[in-house]
């Protein structure tokens, strides 16, 4: 890197900090800090969600995995986007109608405050683990681009930058600057892709030079095979319906229609962008083979191919995206703690000033956890493996208990939910310790949660019918929506709405058929699965045009 690159990085970071400081004065109450005053319009919402999602994890982790194992890691992002569209159409309208600030708040509304406190507590650590992965990715980039290899030095510098940034402006800073960072990152991807592919003879060059297994979109074998795609699709559903770090921006949406549009748009726009993050990893495996750390694929490619100036701009984009992801998640941690634990511990409503103060203290503490976890990432096999391990164990049972049972089965009780969640997490952990494939230990955690919640629920007293009535009523249009004339029906009432939902369903079935065909190494597996995904998105997009 040259002084020009360092200057560009410095200028962009100063601009981002300036923006954070500017929004400091917009923080008047906890709602401003936590959900940006619930005033975020759809395109900014989609951009901020995209920025929280497309980050260094993708440019480093996906590219690193593509470098080592091939293109099929792209399904990690694609299935996540499919899940985001599903969540926008069916689940987020319910949350938005509840006017909650955290996902555990929903768990209290549906189950019990003990379940809310348990998940609130566990999720502070869960999000800190995710931030640790992002921080690790940023360190890998900085180590390779600057030539300064000290791991702990970079951890401290990058973590402190992100913590200070979040402390300044809360969710307004997250929302506003995320939009800007998303655009810089997208620009970075748009620049890297043609340069990297041009160096290897584009897609035909990749197909010719790489082993066929690395270019199989739905491979039969390997750690990122068809089973992985199914498992990550399930986990994507969990992520898109219960991840506080992702959904906090969505909970700040202006109204129900905005949240639906925001999520569907975000899902669709991020799908082509996934290729921008994976393809450079494939190109790097030809240009710079034999890297000791595959996660260094994109940074090594940038050093090899990018001219002075452009390197600085792209590095700034990558660092900015790391800050946006960490700041969104730090803010989510703090919101979880203040809303789900602090209030329960002290049994009284804190003043708005106290809430904002506690929120800021927790941001600093969660930041410390993030730093601690980032040191564990290299021992867990790098960015993608570390993250998959955590979500396979902790996230899957929450999806089963919170969404599958929570929204579809009235008989599920809070005792069943808590014991089922813990059983799922323990089963997942045992599977992981015994060395099972990621898809298998995710299946263990899901199955244990499914069975145990079912049995314990039947053995415990029924949930208060009034509580259930409130949740089930959220499926229908609220008074607020009727007044605003922006009604959204989860189950459409118009013919167009129903037709679009049928298209959506056909796409989903095609996608699943395609992936299962991958188990038999059938040639048509990849075309059917990808066409299914496109049809699914088309159905989701059309659905927005009707009631």
């Amino acid at each position, binding site marked *: 890197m040259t002084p020009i690159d360092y200057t560009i990085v410095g200028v962009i970071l100063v601009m981002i900090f300036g923006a954070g400081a500017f929004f400091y004065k917009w923080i008047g109450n906890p709602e401003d800090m936590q959900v940006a005053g619930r005033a975020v319009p759809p395109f900014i919402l989609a951009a901020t969600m995209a920025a929280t999602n497309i980050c260094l994890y993708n440019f480093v982790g996906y590219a690193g995995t593509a470098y080592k194992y091939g293109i099929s890691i792209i399904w990690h992002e694609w299935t996540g986007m499919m899940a985001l569209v599903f969540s926008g159409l069916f689940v987020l309208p319910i949350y938005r109608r509840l006017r909650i600030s955290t996902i555990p708040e929903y768990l209290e509304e549906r189950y019990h405050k003990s379940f809310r406190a348990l998940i609130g507590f566990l999720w502070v650590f869960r999000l800190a683990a995710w931030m640790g992965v992002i921080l690790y990715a940023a360190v890998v980039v900085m180590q390779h681009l600057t030539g300064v290899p000290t791991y702990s030095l970079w951890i401290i510098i990058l973590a402190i930058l992100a913590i200070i940034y979040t402390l300044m402006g809360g969710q307004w800073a997250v929302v506003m600057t995320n939009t800007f960072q998303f*655009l810089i990152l*997208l620009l970075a991807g748009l620049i890297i*892709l043609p340069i990297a592919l041009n160096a290897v003879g584009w897609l035909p060059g990749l197909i010719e030079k790489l082993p066929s297994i690395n270019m199989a979109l739905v491979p039969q074998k390997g750690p990122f095979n068809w089973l992985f795609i199914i498992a990550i699709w399930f986990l994507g559903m969990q992520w898109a319906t219960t991840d506080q770090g992702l959904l906090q921006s969505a909970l700040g949406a202006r109204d129900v229609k905005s949240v639906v549009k925001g999520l569907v748009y975000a899902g669709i726009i991020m799908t082509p962008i996934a290729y921008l993050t994976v393809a450079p990893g494939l190109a790097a495996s030809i240009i710079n083979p034999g890297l000791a750390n595959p996660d260094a694929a994109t940074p090594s490619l940038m050093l090899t191919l990018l001219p002075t100036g452009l390197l600085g701009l792209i590095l700034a984009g990558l660092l900015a995206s790391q800050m946006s992801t960490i700041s969104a998640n730090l803010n989510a941690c703090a919101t979880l703690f203040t809303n789900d634990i602090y209030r329960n511990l002290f049994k009284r409503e804190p003043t708005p000033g106290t809430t904002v103060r506690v929120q800021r203290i927790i941001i600093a503490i969660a930041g410390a956890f993030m730093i601690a976890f980032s040191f564990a990432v290299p021992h867990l096999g790098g960015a993608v493996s570390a993250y998959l391990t955590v979500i396979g164990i902790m996230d899957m049972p929450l999806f089963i208990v919170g969404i599958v049972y929570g929204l579809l089965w009235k008989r599920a009780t809070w005792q069943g939910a808590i014991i089922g969640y813990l059983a799922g997490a323990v089963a997942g952990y045992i599977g992981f310790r015994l060395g099972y494939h990621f898809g298998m230990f995710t299946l263990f955690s899901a199955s244990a949660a499914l069975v145990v919640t079912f049995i314990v629920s039947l053995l415990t007293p029924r949930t208060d019918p009034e509580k259930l009535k409130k949740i089930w009523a959220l499926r229908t249009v609220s008074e607020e929506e009727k007044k605003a004339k922006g009604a959204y029906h989860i189950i459409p009432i118009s013919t167009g709405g129903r037709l679009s939902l049928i298209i959506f369903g056909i796409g989903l079935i095609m996608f699943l058929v395609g992936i299962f065909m991958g188990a038999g190494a059938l040639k048509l597996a990849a075309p059917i699965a990808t066409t299914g995904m496109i049809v699914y998105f088309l159905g989701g997009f059309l659905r927005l045009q009707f009631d």
Partner: protein
Amino acid sequence: MKFDWISWGTWSLAALVFIIWIIQTTREFRDIFREKGKQSK
């Protein structure tokens, strides 16, 4: 060499997203700043 439709097609879609997002978010930012301006008066 054959033209790489998949890569350029994906790249064009992403570029289109980039342009649309700049236009739309600029509009939405303008509205938010106007609203905040009104509130502070």
